[in-house]
C-alpha cells in the first residue's frame, strides 16, 4: 500500500493540469472551434438495441450528423453533453430523425447495449439518437479518427463534432456548450431547426 513518491508526484501533476484548466474555464471563455477533415474507420459497432452498425456508413450519411463521446456512469461531462443532445432533439420538433445524433461510449468494458438503452431513456432520447458500444480496439480507432483518444475514461474531455453532408467536413467543438451555442453551431453547419414545432415536441412523453 505504500505508494512510491513518484506515483504521488503524478497525482500532483494531474492536479496541477486539471486545476489550471478549471481556473481558465472559470473565465468567460466558452469553447474552441475548428473545422477538420477526418477519415472514419470501417468498424462494426453495436447500438442500444444490440444491432450491429457499420460505423463508416452510419456517419457518411446524407443527413447532418453530430458525434460525441460519453459513457454510462460518467459524472460531470456526459450529463452536460447529453442534456445538449436532448435539448437539440426538442428543438427539432416532431421529426427527430432528420439529424443523426451519435454518442459513442469510451467505456466499452461496462457499457452493454442494455446500459446504453437505459441511459438514453433517462434523457428521454427520441429516435435519431444512437448510443454505440463495441470492441475496445474498434472504439480506440474511432477515437483516434476524431483525434480524440482518451487513454482512460477518467481523462474524458468534452468534445462535440458536427458533420456537414455537403463537404463531409467536421466542425470540432471543444468545451461545454450552452444550448444557444450548440444550436448556433448546428445552424452554421447549414442546418435548420423548425422552431414552430419545438414547443409541441417538448411536451414530456
Amino acid at each position, binding site marked *: *500500500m*505504500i*505508494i512510491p*513518491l513518484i506515483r*504521488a*508526484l503524478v*497525482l*500532483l501533476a*494531474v*492536479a*496541477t493540469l*486539471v*486545476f*489550471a*484548466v*478549471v*481556473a481558465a*474555464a*472559470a473565465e468567460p471563455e466558452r469553447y474552441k472551434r475548428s473545422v477538420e477533415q477526418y477519415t472514419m474507420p470501417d468498424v462494426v459497432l*453495436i447500438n442500444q438495441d*444490440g444491432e450491429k452498425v457499420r460505423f463508416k456508413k452510419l456517419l457518411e450519411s446524407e443527413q447532418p450528423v453530430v458525434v460525441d463521446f460519453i*459513457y*454510462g*456512469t*460518467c*459524472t*460531470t*461531462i456526459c*450529463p*452536460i453533453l*447529453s*442534456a*445538449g443532445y*436532448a435539448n437539440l432533439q426538442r428543438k427539432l420538433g416532431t421529426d427527430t430523425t432528420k439529424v443523426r445524433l451519435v454518442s459513442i461510449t469510451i*467505456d*466499452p*468494458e*461496462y*457499457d*452493454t*447495449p*442494455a446500459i446504453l438503452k437505459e441511459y438514453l431513456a*433517462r434523457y*428521454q432520447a427520441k429516435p435519431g439518437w444512437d448510443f454505440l*458500444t*463495441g*470492441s*475496445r*480496439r474498434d472504439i480506440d480507432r474511432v477515437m483516434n479518427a476524431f483525434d480524440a483518444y482518451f487513454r*482512460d*475514461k*477518467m481523462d*474524458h*474531455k*468534452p468534445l462535440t463534432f458536427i458533420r456537414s453532408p455537403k463537404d463531409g467536413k467536421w466542425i470540432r467543438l471543444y468545451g*461545454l*456548450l*450552452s*444550448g*444557444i451555442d450548440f444550436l448556433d453551431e448546428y445552424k452554421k453547419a447549414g442546418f435548420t431547426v423548425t422552431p414552430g414545432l419545438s414547443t409541441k415536441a417538448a411536451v414530456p412523453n
Partner: protein
Amino acid sequence: MKLLTVTLLLLSLSNAFAAPVPQELSPADIQRLGERMYRDGILPNGEVMKAFVSDDVPVDGTAFTCVSCHLRSGLGSVEGEVVTTPTNGRILYEERKSFIKGSEFVPSISNYAKYLPVRPAYTDETLATLIAAGVDPTGRSVLKVMPRYELEDRDMAIMIAYLKTLSDELPPGVSEKEIKFATVIVEGTDPVAVESMVLPLQFSVDRKNSLAKAAKSNDRVARMGYNMLGDLHSYTFTLSRWVLKGTSDTWRAQLEAYYAKEPVFALLGGISPGTWEPVHRFCEEHRLPSLFPIVDEPVISASDWYTQYLSRGIRLEGESAARYLHGMVDLIKGRAIVQVSRDSRRGRALADGFRTIWTETGHPPVIDITLPAGEPLTVEKLRQIVVKDRPAVLVVWDDASLIKALSGLVEQADRPSMIIASGTFLGEALWTVPESLRAALYLTYPYRLPEDEKRFDISARKVLAGKNPNKYDSVIIRQAYIAQEVLGQALMMMRGEYYRDFLLDTIGMMEDMHYPLYERVSFGPGQRYASKGCFIVQVGKGDKPQLEKRSEWVIQ
C-alpha cells in the same frame, strides 16, 4: 426568458431566503426527502426536480441530479478537466483558503484548493443562492456545469439540511490514528484458499504498520511518508478475521455480534465456497463497504452500493458465451442451440448467465437440458441430444468429465459445429483436451492468458517472498493482491476524508487498472464488478498447447 427567470430568482433569493427547516419534519424525514432530491432528483411532493444547465438547457432531475456530479458522499469528483467541489455542510460552511493548511506539500488532490477561487464560509442564505442561481458568496458565477435549481423555500431548506448530514462525522472503525478492517471467512472453505486470501492482505497491513512505526521514531521516514501519503502515513491498520460457522441463515447473527464487538471501517477480501448473500445484505444494511470478497457467485444487483466485487463471478462466462454467439447468430439461421448444464452451483450460474444474455439480446430461448447432480455426462447422452435436436451449437456447462464424453461425440457425423464450455469449470483439465476435439471446442476464459500473465509475476512474488508458492492458490493470491492494491490506492486518494461512501466513490473514480490475473479491471460510479472480461479461446495444436484467443477481452 429563462435567463430572466433565473435572474429574478437570484434577486429574490439573495435577500429573501431564510426559510427554516420545516417544523413538522423529523430528522429521518429530512434525511429521506433530502436524499430523494439529492440522489433521484425527485422533490418532496413527488414531482421531478427542474434545473437549467449550461445557461439555458433545461434538465430533469431524473436525467441527472446532485449525486451524478458530487457523488454519494458529497465530497465531489474529478473527471477530465472538470472538478466538482464538495457539497457537504462541513466543508461548505468553512472558508476555502488558497491552500489547506499543513498539506502544502501533500501531492494529492486536496491541493485542489490552490486552484479554486477562495470563498468565505457559506451561510444557509448564500448556499441557497448558489443552488438556485449559481452565484457563490463572493459574487462569482460558478461554472455553468453546475445546474441552477428551481426549488421552493421549503424544499431548499430540506436540501440544505440534508447537505449538512453528508460526510459529517467520521464513521465507526476510523479514529485519528487507526483504521480497522475485518475479513470474513466462511467455515468449510479450503484452508489453502483461506491462507491464499489472507496472505496478501496481512502482508499489506503489516507493511503499512511498519511504516507508521518507523515514522514515529525516525523523522526522515516520517517526512518521506508524509510527502507520499499525507496524514495516512501515521495511521495503523488492523485486520480481524470474522469466521462464520454453521448454515448461512445463522450468519447474520454472527456478523452482528462481530460488528457490535468491533465496528470496522470496511470488510476487506473475504471468502466463501458458496453463497455470499447474507454478508452482502449485512453490508448494505450497515452501510459497510466490502471490498473484493472472493466468491464464485456474487450478488448481482444494479443498485446495491456497498460490496465491490472482483467480477460477476462464474456467470460472467455464461454471459460472455452468449454475447460471442450473438455475434454470429445470423449465420446459425434458426438451427437449434442446446444448453446442457450440471445441476450444481456453478452449472446453474453459468446456464443462467447464458440464458439471461441470450434472451436480453432478443433471441428465442435455447433448448435447456439439466444434468442431475451426480449423474455423469456420457457419450450416449450427448448422442441422444444430437440425434433429437441436431443443434448447430452445443453449450455444455460441466466439469472435466465432459472432455471424455465430448471426445466420443467428435466422430459423430451430425455433431454440432461449435461446442462451448467453461475454462474455469474444466480447471487444469483444459490442458488435456485431445487434438481431435480442439477445432470444435471453444472455451470461456475469464483471466489473462498464461503466457501474458508471466509479465505480472513480480507482484505475486513480492507477497510470496520466502514462501513455497505450491502451498498457495495462485488465482486467489492474485485476487487478494488486487483487493489490497485498490484499497491502498483509494485511501491515498481520499486525502484524509475517511468516509465509507467516499471510499466507494473514490474507487469509482479510479482509472482502469492492469493488475495481475485480469487483463483489465475497471471502475466507475456505481460499477460494482471490476473485471468485465472473458476471452473465448481455443486450445492450440501440439503437446504443450497454448490458448488462442478468438475474442477480445470484453465482448459486446
